[in-house]
């Protein structure tokens, strides 16, 4: 028996060594943690599929993973759906560096979408539309930031309230101020689609019309945010305030300025997200403000899970939003694979479980650090052996 244990521990040694080596680089550890959590999330999704219809589970899992890569069109769809998500994820991640939870992002996305659509419908260029969205989002982000900095109002509270304020203001504006020429004649609580002048220019890749300049802008902004956070004094101040507010006051960081700026920039990113939601050259959708339908765009909330999976890393946001959309595009294929057993409710459930587990990636990150602290897995097994020996001695 003791021999067997030793064999097992020997078998795990390379794994343990691997983790030990990866633990030395913090960034690499985060990546490992993210991948681990996604794999476990997929496995849990697999278990649910087994519960519903065991025969189709294997095929279902494969579909879940591979659909996005089967055709250029599918991959293109995943890519353009991921673009706005990158921005909302970035917005959350940016505010989080200062320890602020920008839950007002939903409202900021909505106001950004609404204003940029109005700008587009009045015939403006796509870039100007994007700027309009960013500015409107920034203003919506500034308000909770100013309240937080000046009056110490909790940003979660004021953010949620502002979401609803924006929701109803859009309803009022839509019914009164917005000219009828912008509206659909059949259903008056709907804006027209973004005209082609306001849509982002497509990159023109065959079979992937949806892939536009947006993805390039997204990657560019991710790099800028990464540089700002890690290489500039402004980012240093933000991180310092996030980790220890008192010490940053002591070091002379202007708290008011950095709080307001962080939430404003976060809001601007959300505003761009709002613009991109309605400016896809592939299949632009329509904007509703009828109070019976949900006008508050859930894409802001998606940003929270994007940022969580990426552990607030700007570059990680690209991959985590891509992961979410890749799962998203496999919905229809899942249904056909299982003869309709995995219907829309089940696919949503599977998606939710995967996101839920994947969001635990920070937990896995901590676990990896703990393994390192306990002098790696190697020692873990060594200790197990000594315990065993102790027992034998006791007898």
């Amino acid at each position, binding site marked *: 028996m003791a021999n067997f244990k030793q064999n097992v521990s020997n078998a795990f040694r390379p794994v343990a060594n691997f983790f030990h080596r990866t633990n030395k680089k913090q960034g690499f550890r985060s990546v490992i943690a993210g991948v681990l959590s996604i794999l476990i999330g997929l496995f849990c999704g697999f278990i649910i599929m087994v519960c519903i219809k065991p025969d189709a589970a294997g095929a279902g899992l494969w579909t879940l993973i591979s659909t996005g890569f089967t055709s250029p069109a599918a991959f293109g769809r995943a890519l353009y759906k991921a673009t706005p998500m990158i921005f909302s994820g970035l917005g959350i991640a940016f505010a989080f560096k200062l320890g602020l939870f920008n839950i007002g992002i939903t409202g900021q996305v909505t106001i950004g979408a609404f204003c940029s659509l109005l700008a587009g419908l009045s015939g403006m260029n796509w870039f100007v539309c994007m700027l309009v969205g960013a500015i409107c989002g920034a203003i919506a982000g500034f308000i909770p930031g100013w309240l937080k900095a000046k009056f110490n109002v909790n940003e979660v509270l004021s953010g949620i309230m502002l979401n609803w304020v924006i929701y109803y203001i859009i309803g009022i504006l839509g019914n009164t101020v917005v000219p009828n020429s912008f509206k659909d004649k059949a259903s008056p609580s709907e804006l027209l689609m973004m005209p082609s002048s306001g849509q982002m220019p497509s990159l023109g890749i065959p079979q992937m019309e949806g892939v536009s300049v947006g993805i390039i802008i997204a990657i560019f902004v991710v790099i800028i945010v990464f540089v700002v956070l890690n*290489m*500039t*004094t*402004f980012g*240093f101040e933000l*991180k*310092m305030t996030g*980790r*220890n507010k*008192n*010490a*940053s*006051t*002591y*070091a*002379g*960081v*202007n708290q008011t300025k950095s709080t307001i700026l962080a939430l404003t920039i976060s809001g601007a990113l959300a505003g761009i997200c709002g613009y991109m939601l309605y400016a896809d050259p592939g299949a632009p959708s329509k904007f509703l403000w009828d109070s019976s339908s949900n006008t508050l765009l859930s894409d802001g909330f998606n940003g929270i899970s994007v940022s969580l999976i990426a552990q607030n890393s700007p570059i990680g946001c690209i991959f985590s939003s891509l992961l979410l959309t890749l799962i998203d595009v496999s919905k229809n294929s899942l249904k056909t694979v299982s003869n309709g057993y995995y219907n829309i409710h089940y696919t949503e459930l599977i998606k939710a479980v995967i996101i839920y587990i994947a969001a635990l990636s920070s937990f896995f990150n901590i676990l990896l650090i703990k393994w*390192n602290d306990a*002098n790696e897995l190697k020692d873990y097994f060594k200790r197990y052996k000594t315990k065993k020996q102790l027992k034998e001695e006791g007898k």
Partner: protein
Amino acid sequence: MEENNVIELRHISKSFPGIKANDDISLTLRKGEIHALLGENGAGKSTLMSILFGLYEPDEGEIYVNGKLEKIKNPNDATRLGIGMVHQHFKLVECYTALQNIILGAEPTKFGFLNPKVVRKSLEDLCAKFNFKVDLDETIDDMPVGEQQKVEILKMLYRQNDILIFDEPTAVLTPQEIEELMQSMKELVKEGKSILFISHKLNEIMEVSDRVTVLQRGKCLGTLNTKDTNPVELSRLMVGRDVELRVQKDECKPGDTVLSVENVTVYNKDKKKDVVHNVSFNVRKGEIVCIAGIEGNGQSDLIYALTGLEKMKNGSAIINFDVNNKEEAEKYIPKSNKFTTSIIDGFKYTGAGISYIFKVMSYGLKRGWHSFANLFRKNKKKFEIEKPTFKVSTKANYLEEVQKGRIHLEALSVRRRNESGVSHIPEDRHKYGLVLDFNLRDNLVLDTYFHRPFQKFGFINNKEKDKVATRLVTEFDIRSSQGTSTIVRSMSGGNQQKAIVARELNRHTPLLIAVQPTRGLDVGAIESIHKDIVKARDEGNAVLLVSLELEEVMNLADRILVMYNGEIVGQFNPKDVTINELGLYMSGAKRDSVNAVL
């Protein structure tokens, strides 16, 4: 094995990544003795005690408790074996009463309901036995630190622990409280308890302990009988070289005034009252002015008001410099152009205007409410709140003041104060002094990261940071496991303190404000920091020192100001005064009317 060994540690080793904290340490604790554990910062004392208390597991070695081999995996195991620990930072629930804290985790119950009455009697007996003056129904918030510590001790006694570990218990106490603690420890030992006492204050160890074990850099240098040794030998063993226990310094040659504090009053939000009343004093070039006093007499609030961490209610603090001395003046007078100045001032006027409107509105409401309330009062009250005034501190005004060689600190932001020649070693190193999750390199430039070599056009230059950090690490002997990349949280308390001192002294500012710069440090480190402070003085800088330790005060100060109850009650030359005399002023038994502005 001897019968009366309650604890025996055999060949304990423990390493952390990059450092061997304990290397083959053996130690025995006899029944009924006080065993002192002496060592420098980072020598491995706390690690060893954490192993004994079950917070870490040793890599090698065995622990025998009452002659039996035991595995202590967590603090619960330790409590089961009768081992209790008083931590340096107390583990008490602040809004609970003493009694609630003591029974927490081992609550006496009757039919599932709390029944503290049973315990009260036995606790009162314990208090009487050991002469503890603790009010069991007082909340921890309202207690002085010394009393809180007694609650911790009572907690251990209530759990019937026979082996008590004191982790640097005197670091946070006043001299009187230390005296009381020493008495209590002697009483406890008489009752058959055994005490492990961690400290690096030699005189306490000499007074109270029976045996002393010395650790140096993780290794055990042996155990001595306290009777057979003396402080000089102990300090040499601990540090590994001869240590001067008194600082050598030249006669003080004070020059012009650098800092003048005029009629400062500070309001404390938590205590809801003024804690500093009308304090005036000055600090001159080449002089160490030391504010002595028992903790909580307004020293901290005064310093927070000077450095900008709290607001000043009244009065002013002024940095003076010589305008005619061009080299000196250049440091203070910022380069600015009229355009940006007027834009910034525009913002400031707008902000001040908005806040003025709010103030006037609230004043009006208060006045209205007062007149309404007066209708129903028998004794009509007078309305006493002052009318708000429109105040704005513009950059233009600031520039004008600077041209005259006077900088009013009270109107400036913390950043501007730092740039006006104030460096500050804060009292609370975890709250203010350090960002614990940053690495050592970033912490060593925490308030200078925006200066030229560390940043260019807003981009951080880590190489330059590292250069400076490496120099400071060697200069100030800051020990850490992975050099400048160590996360500060994992460093020992003393080395964290050294990092702060290194950072602030490296700025070579005309005014150094140091609050308890040697708190929790060993003799070797204290010696070097004292030397550095004296060196800063000899360079012609002014030093304002706040210390609770009278020895430090007597050692360093050129002028002593005693603070009691928010006022300065005495001013002395350290040569003309004894420690006892100072103690009388500090406790409020004596007071002079002082003119501390020289």
